[in-house]
Every structure is written in C-alpha cells, then in structure tokens.
C-alpha cells in the first residue's frame, strides 16, 4: 500500500466519509446522552406528587444520598448473588460440554443437534421466558401439580414467596439462557489449542482428565477470563428476568431487586438526579470491567 502513496491519499478521505454515519449516530444517541446523564447526577430534579422539584444544582448530594441510603448495596448484593448462582454452574457445564464436543477421541454423534438445543434458550425473549416461568412455578401451576402427582410435595410450594426459590429461579433462567453461548465460546477456544500438545500428552500416558486439568484449562485462561468478565458485565445489567418474574417488586421484600430494576424505577418516576447518580455508578463499574476485557482482547490480537 505504501508504494502508491500519492494515489492512496486521494482515496483516503473516503475513510472519513464512510465513518460519518457511525460517528454522527454514536455522538447523538450515546455520547450526548452519556454526558447529560453525568450532568444530571449533580442536580436535584424529581417530581413529588404534582410539584416538580428542581432542577437545582446540589453537587454530590445525590451520590451521598444514593450510597448512604444503603439500598444500593442491598441491590448490588442481590445482583451479585444471582449472578454467581447462575455463573458457577454455567462455567462448569460449559467447560464439561466444550471438552466433550472438542474431544476427537469421544467422537460424539448428534453434536449439531445438541449444540442447536443448548443455544436455543439464548434467543428466547427474556421477558416471555420469565413470564413462562412465573406461570409454570405459580402456586397452582404445572410444576407444583407435577411435583404433587409424583408425591414429592404434599401441598403446593410457594416459589414466589421464598427468597431463595425466587433467586434460584432467576439464576436458573440466566444459566439456561447463557450456558449454550459460553459452551460455544469455550469450545472454539479449545479447538484453537495446538493438537500436538494433546498428542504428546497422550503418548506420555496422560489420561483425558489430566489433559483437561494440566493442558486445556491453563491454556484457556484468557478466554475464561474474557467469558467471566463479559458475563459479569451482563450480570450487572440483569433486568428483564427478575423484573417480569416479580412484576418489578423484587419480591419477597426486595431480595431479588437488581441495580437496573432500581434504575428503571427512578427513570419511570422521573427522578433524574438519583437516576443519574446510579447510572454514573454503573458506568464506572462497567467501565473498569470493560477495560479489563479490552486489555485481554488487545493482548490476544497481538499474536
């Protein structure tokens, strides 16, 4: 390309021209909103009944109120608990399935079928999926009916009134929706490992269990880290499933209320000051996490 510089320069203005749509739309619909969200977080601006309060500049008062109220920590804890409850089984299952799918000595049949099935829940509308689980696990719903017919329960279990059953349902739905995606990502990573390493290990008499722990897992570390952080970023955005499942209440007693459900409440009630402060908090947390992903990716691109 360098040897025809004169000609190339003439064309290179097209690089800018082709970037115009992206830049304009990005600036208008993401950058300006981001700046104004941050700006809003320094103002008192909400509705109390019919009277509009503010906007008045209050400095960091919204942040002080947000963090001293204590609720944000409860919601952060809820979000993290439900994320971990879904993520740990997800990573275990995905590693297992990925190892099986990519193990040539197993020669599993029907891989297309299994991959299709495990990826399926990822494309389901999360809100409809949550509504489905709500009806299935209702006090008079089919799950209680099945469990009673099997003699496991004598009276209906109130899934929606128990802290841990609601959290488990949310975690389970997230698990179902995401483990297929994670499996495919990890499998792609496993396929990328130099097969001569496996062959050498086999020649040395290593078992497949040992190969998995000593070779596959250490070499997968960057992809595992990537999967974990992107899942954590996704977990912080947890909204559709608990919102629909609990009708926005985070029942029982707000133990399944997530950070974005909290933000959604502020946005609906038009409490822009508090909503802004919460958004900035989320922005900073995801920003730090994104930076880690960005570092992993740029390291990966160098080789």
């Amino acid at each position, binding site marked *: 390309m360098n040897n025809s510089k004169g000609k190339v320069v003439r064309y290179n203005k097209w690089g800018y021209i082709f970037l115009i749509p992206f830049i304009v739309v990005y600036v208008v619909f993401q950058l300006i909103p981001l700046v104004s969200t941050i700006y809003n977080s320094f103002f008192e601006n909400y509705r109390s009944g019919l009277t509009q309060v503010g906007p008045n500049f209050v400095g960091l008062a919204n942040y002080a109120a947000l963090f001293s109220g204590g609720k944000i920590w409860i919601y952060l804890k809820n979000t993290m608990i439900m994320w971990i409850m879904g993520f740990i089984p997800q990573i275990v299952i995905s590693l297992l399935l990925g190892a099986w799918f990519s193990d040539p000595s*197993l020669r599993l049949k029907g891989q297309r079928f299994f991959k299709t099935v495990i990826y399926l829940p990822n494309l389901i509308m999360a809100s409809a999926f949550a509504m489905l689980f709500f009806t299935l696990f209702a006090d008079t719903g089919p799950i209680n009916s099945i469990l009673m017919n099997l003699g496991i329960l004598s009276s209906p279990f109130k899934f929606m009134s128990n802290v841990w059953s609601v959290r488990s349902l949310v975690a389970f739905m997230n698990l179902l929706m995401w483990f297929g995606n994670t499996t495919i990502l990890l499998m792609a990573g496993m396929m990328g490992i130099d097969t001569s390493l496996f062959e050498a290990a086999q020649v040395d008499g290593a078992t497949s269990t040992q190969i998995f722990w000593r070779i596959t897992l250490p070499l997968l570390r960057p992809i595992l880290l990537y999967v974990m952080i992107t899942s954590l970023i996704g977990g912080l955005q947890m909204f559709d499933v608990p919102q629909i499942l609990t009708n926005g209440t985070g029942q029982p007693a707000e133990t399944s209320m997530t950070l974005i459900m909290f933000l959604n409440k502020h946005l609906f009630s038009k409490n822009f000051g508090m909503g802004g402060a919460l958004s900035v908090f989320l922005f900073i947390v995801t920003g730090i996490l994104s930076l880690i992903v960005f570092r992993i990716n740029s390291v990966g691109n160098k080789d």
Partner: protein
Amino acid sequence: MSNDVVKGPDKGMGVHGRRAVSYIVLILISFLCLFWFYVLFINATRSHAELTKGFTPVPSSFLITNLKNVFTGTLPVVRGMLNSLLIAACSAVLCTYFSTMTAYAIHAYDFKLKKFMSTFILAVMMIPAQVTALGFLQLIGKMGLDDSFIPLIVPSIAAPVTYFYMKQYMESALPLSLIEAARIDGSGEFRTFNNIVLPLMKPAIAVQAIFTFVSSWNNYFTPALVLHTDTKKTLPILIAQLRSADFLKFDMGQVYAMIAFSIFPVIVVYLLLSKYIVGGVAVGAVKG
C-alpha cells in the same frame, strides 16, 4: 509413572464409558432446555378449566380457541407483533449495512484518525445501553421523538459489536487487491462498497442480521421507557402488562397461548437457520 497413570482411579473407564456418561449428561441437559417449551406447548392447547385441574403430558384441542381469544383480547397482541417485526427488521438492515460501512472505512483506508477510531470503538464496545438511558430519554424528549419508533431503530447504526465482527470477517474475506482492481476499472468508492464489498460480506451480514433482529425483537428495557401508546407497544411490553394484570382472573389458556405466540416464531426461525447461527457465534469467538 505412566503405569501409575493408566491404572489410576477414574481410568478404569475407557472411551466407551466416558462416551456413555457424556451422552447421558447431554440428554439430561437437552431435556432441561426443552422441557419448559414442551409444557408451554401442551398448556397452550388446553382450556382454562382443564388447566386448573393440574398438568397432563398430552395436548388438548383448544389451541385455536386460545389463540383466537388472544387476538381478540384486550392486549393488542397482533399489533404488538407487527411493531416488533418492523422495529427489529429496520434495526437489522440499518445495523448491518452501516456496521459493514464502518468496518470497511477502518479496513480499507489509511487515515490519520484510523488508529484512534478503531481503539475508541473497541473501548466503548461494552458500555451498556442502560447507563445512558437517562440522557437518551431526555434527549429524545427534546427532539420530539418520544413515543416513536425512530429512537429504537436509528441508534442501531452505531453498533460496536457488529462492527467488530464485520471487521474480523473482512480481514479474512476481503483482499485489498480486489478493491484496487475495482479502482483501476474506474469504479467509484461508494459503488465499490455497494457492488463489490457488500456481496462478499453476505455470510457475515446474514449472521449479524439475525443477531441484531433477535436482540431488538427481545429488547424490553428501552422500548418500555420510550413507547407509551398502546398501539405502538412491542411484544415484550405487552408480556410485562400481562404479568402485571390480575393474574388469577385471567384465562390461563390465553396466557399460555400468548407466551407461546411470542416464543414459538423465534424458535421456528432459529431451527431453520441454526446452522448459520451456531456457526456464527463460534466464528466471532475464535477471533474475539
């Protein structure tokens, strides 16, 4: 050492044993994935009276009745589906076309801000829409776009994730010599992009169009904050309304039919296109 390994505790299980275990686990997991949709299908075919009696594994004959009730019910479901379709289809078209264009700008040209732009797009890739939602809502309010489809469609032009996929694909499928040849033949840059680059990118565009469509189709957070008029609402918002309606007074057959109505079209399309979708995730993964 090697003898020890061969006779170790779990090594009694040969390839056959391990294969059997993996089939059993896979079948169990597939069951866990499909069971809910099976129950949904069965229950969508049963009447309210049958549903209150408890679960049976065989379908009944009320599917058509239930669907009819859904379509004539209080929630504008058909309208909701058309709205969802329109928004998702427009987003998919705009997103793939302009993301390809953005990727092409970075891939094919050398300009001063190129490095900065590609780093910038990568850096903002993970920022979720929720954290800018507040400013976004205020802005579209000021622009008079509240309660309209435009703020749900146009922003998809700037999609860093789609851009990233397109750029990765271009690096393996779009040789710069081809563009050079088109220039020598006197093709303008814009024409080259539309007539030569786009057709070559078809496989990547198809995969990303599906993903954009599905994520727009399933999106609940932003549309619920933007759309207020009943006839403009999308399916996920109507599902949320169904959830907040007084649950027990409802005809349960209708509830199941409506959930089925919002889930099954996606499943059918997915099964038809699964080859490309599952493959597409993997392609993105190898590079990502």
